[in-house]
């Protein structure tokens, strides 16, 4: 049997009961719990501490390990979330394997929830301590898992976000491999005229970024190339890159950045779009970049193909783009009429709102429309219902510009499968946590930035590229990857290769080995959640530190 219980005579469990000042001792009888603990089988020593986490309390644990020759330590105090690492490290410092430590929470689970019931709280604390001690008897020493790290990073996509990430990584001294599928890097900015809010030329901006990367000896660019295959995991990915019509190249990297951007929607069938008199903002950008615009009367319509039942999201950048272009047209030709029909002007923040205000001052007209009564593009005019007057109004025009949202690229889905990272309901890459981990994927070692995640303007895409680079630095600046030993293992002798566990694992940490017809856990990717152990019909999957015999011992002690 795995994880055999040590012979009773060799077990020397030390139990430390914490008063936490009066936080615990004020609501239950810690002395009686300590006395009780000392009578439990295997317990060699029990001690009550005023504050176990204080220097004196830690000293008691370490003294106990040395003088009492303790080979298991149980602390009954507060939450393992805040204090387990401290106690484990203290055990390690006294040369006791930190995985021979067990924590019991008699504060949150006892004194705090049973404040007015001293007797019962004391009894429950005893029960909890007995359970912890029973489990401790079955604990086994473990070694933290170490893995090597390749200090090299793959960046997929050479738009501003990817260039920003690559430039920053290279500047921090990491090797960078940038793969761009087009023959030129720069992404959407190669087609854009000037950049809001400051007005610099978009093409110059990317050129500057590109040159600074090219000047770095530790950056390699693969233009006109695609990532064909990805295997491995954090620290050790193996990548196959295929240049257009060329030989495949293999690269080994420690981390990956996804910066594949997005594309503006082509509004086929909407508002009489024809690409000549009714164009998209992107087509307008190209015309403006090419030279003076002939149109005298321009009407822009916002939210074309966005914020609608088939595409609910707001694309964030189109309002800024429309205002920027409206102002540019007025600057080039003050006589021109520009009218923007919108639903909400999404000019968030300082500079954007200022642009909106300036545009109004410069004579750009704004009118709101409601989605249940959208404007109608007719020959030479756009007609819309104006709520302020309650009338239908026609605006004469010789050019209609449609603001269409950024949508995921056609091949985003394929890339997501290649990397085994998710996309959201709109097809954008899905980060690990919307608020707290916006640039991470749930899968370790892979990061996202720019419009690949969700439409972003240049400033945001650049910041996110930088952000992804520092997320990577926190991993690759270390010599090796050290992770907790609390991971799952699958017994190759009993596994029947049913693959039930693979579906349950949220971290893609389990692989199927067809030649042996068994499943195997990648201990570097495993986070120790235990889903596989709970699923496995043959009980071959177990979680270290939470094996059936350890849990059963705890449960039987109830």
């Amino acid at each position, binding site marked *: 049997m795995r994880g055999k219980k040590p012979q009773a005579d060799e077990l020397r469990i030390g139990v430390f009961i914490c008063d*936490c000042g009066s*936080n615990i001792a004020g609501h239950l009888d810690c002395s009686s719990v300590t006395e009780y603990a000392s009578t439990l089988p295997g317990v060699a020593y029990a001690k009550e501490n005023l504050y176990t986490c204080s220097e004196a309390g830690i000293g008691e644990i370490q003294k106990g390990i040395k003088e009492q020759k303790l080979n298991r330590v149980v602390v009954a105090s507060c939450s393992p979330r805040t204090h387990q690492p401290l106690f484990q490290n203290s055990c390690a410092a006294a040369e006791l394997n930190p995985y021979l430590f067990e924590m019991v929470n008699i504060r949150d689970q006892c004194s705090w929830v049973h404040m007015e019931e001293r007797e019962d709280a004391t009894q429950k604390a005893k029960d909890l301590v007995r359970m912890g001690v029973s489990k401790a008897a079955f604990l086994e020493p473990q070694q933290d898992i170490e893995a090597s790290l390749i200090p090299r990073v793959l960046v997929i996509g050479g738009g501003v976000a990817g260039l920003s990430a690559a430039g920053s990584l290279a500047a921090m001294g990491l090797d960078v491999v940038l793969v761009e599928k087009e023959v030129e890097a720069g992404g959407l900015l190669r087609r854009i005229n000037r950049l809001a809010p400051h007005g610099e030329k978009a093409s110059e901006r990317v050129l500057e970024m590109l040159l600074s990367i090219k000047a770095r000896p530790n950056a390699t660019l693969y233009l006109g190339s695609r990532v064909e295959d990805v295997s491995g995991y954090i620290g050790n990915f193996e990548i196959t890159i295929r240049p257009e019509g060329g030989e495949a190249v293999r690269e080994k990297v420690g981390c990956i950045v996804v910066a594949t951007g997005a594309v503006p929607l082509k509004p086929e069938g909407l508002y009489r779009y024809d690409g000549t008199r009714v164009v998209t903002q992107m087509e307008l950008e190209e015309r403006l970049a090419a030279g003076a615009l002939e149109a005298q009367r321009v009407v822009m319509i916002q939210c074309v193909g966005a914020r609608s039942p088939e595409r609910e999201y707001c694309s964030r950048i189109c309002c800024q783009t429309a205002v920027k272009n409206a102002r540019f047209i007025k600057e080039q030709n003050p006589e021109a009429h520009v009218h923007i029909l919108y639903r909400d002007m999404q000019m968030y*923040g300082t500079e954007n709102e200022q642009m909106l205000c300036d545009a109004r001052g410069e004579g750009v007209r704004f009118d709101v429309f409601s989605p249940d009564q959208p404007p109608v593009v007719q020959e030479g005019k756009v007609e819309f219902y104006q709520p302020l007057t309650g009338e239908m109004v026609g605006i004469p025009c010789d050019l209609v510009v449609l603001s269409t949202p950024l949508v995921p690229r056609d091949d985003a889905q394929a890339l997501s499968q290649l990397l085994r990272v998710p996309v959201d309901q709109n097809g954008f890459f899905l980060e690990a946590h919307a608020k707290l981990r916006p640039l991470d994927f749930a899968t370790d070692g892979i990061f996202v930035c720019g419009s690949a995640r969700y439409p972003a303007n240049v400033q945001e895409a650049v910041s996110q590229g930088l952000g992804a680079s520092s997320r990577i630095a926190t991993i690759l600046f270390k010599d090796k990857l050290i992770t907790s030993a609390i991971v799952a293992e699958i017994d190759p002798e009993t596994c029947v290769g049913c693959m039930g566990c693979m579906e349950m694992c949220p971290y893609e940490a389990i692989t199927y080995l067809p030649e042996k017809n068994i499943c195997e856990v990648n201990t570097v990717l495993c986070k120790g959640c235990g889903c596989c152990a709970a699923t496995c019909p043959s009980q071959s999957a177990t979680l270290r530190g939470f094996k059936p015999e350890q849990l059963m011992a705890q449960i039987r002690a109830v």
Partner: protein
Amino acid sequence: MLDVGRHPDIDLMAYSEVEKVEGESGAFKATIRRKARYVEEDRCTGCGACKEKCPTVLPDAFNMGLGTRKAIYSWFAQGIPSTHTIDPAHCRQLNGKKCGICQKVCQANAVNFDQKDRIVELDVGAIVVASGYKVFDPSQIPEYQYRQIPNVITAIEFERLLSASGPTAGHLHRPSDLLVEAEMEALEKDVKKSEKALDKFEQKYGQASAAFYDAYQKGAYEGDEDRGKWAEKYVAHLALVEPLDALKREAEGFDVAKRLAFVQCVGSRDFRFYPFCSGYCCMHSIKEAIIANEHERETTSVIFGMDIRAVGKGFEEYKIRGGNQSGITYVRGRVAEITEGPQRNPVVTYEDTRERKVISRDFDLVILATACAPSEGVERLAEILGIERNRFGFFKTGTSQSLDTTRPGIFACGCAHGPMDIPESVAQASGAAARAAQIVTAASMRKAS
């Protein structure tokens, strides 16, 4: 927060301020003032026994003054570090009175009334400014009558009311009701006291006060000084009981707030105060309206805004869901005025742009979405760091390196950079860390070679 507190490479200096920065990118010398907490950080375990016993009760700034705290306190329950702090302005002991109770109850011997501010000098390669924002004070807007009408509150105050760990345990009691309840409590105390005083007379003379007073009024005890006092006390007692009864009757009708109005752009997009858009307030109003509805399914909300700027990932979807499932109505327009109507209900006056009519509607509670103003002390901080501010009052940053301030080696992120929500702030913070790391690695490479 916990991760930062626990990280071996992060030295968290809470309750501290930067006083001086000398040197240059790659080699700054920063002077930090570590303010005296009067509690030893390495001894205090954060158990909180001290604040249980501390006799000095103060309004709790974390709960926007809606609850109370003691003179020895932790900013909030999950704060990192958990070290408690004595508020020197209010602590009895520190103000020359006899007390020191916390010192006596602290079993960790952590309280030290002699602690002084400490000055620490740090050698750092780069600096990140993440000093955030300040909530705009809407009492500057006369037409909204914040502070004059109790049921007009700010979004951040509303957050505390919604919070399960807040002053009302998450129930939406109206501030006007809370005021009445506080008044009742005070009156009840006084009534108890005066009952005690009457009790004495009643026992002495073996007569109920009411019966005695009847007789007294009929002139029964002319010239009896002691009974005269009794009569006086009884009159005073009635003067307490009557208003108390009135308040009790009023309080019977109290209910939690169920009809909410959210007023957007309070101080934002307003040339009298801040011309910019604060970016996150549309979303926090929607969030608060949804949460209020989750607590109490009958709750309905109206959000008044010029535009509803739901511009983040999943935000538009969230907004639509709020409308369909959480009783939110969105009304386009700026609120002109808030007044007080019957039952202390705030009345919102606005122009309905669809109906082209001026409308006044009453609500149970009005919540003001206040602007994201540059942080408290931003001028001084800019001066200390030697960096410029932009025309909006936030730290000025570059065009192509948008996290770089005007002094090399100093970077800004989050609301110190400009108004933004949490995901944007977090992404920028990582970005600023990268810029800082570039400087530090370059400096250490120079040193190594």
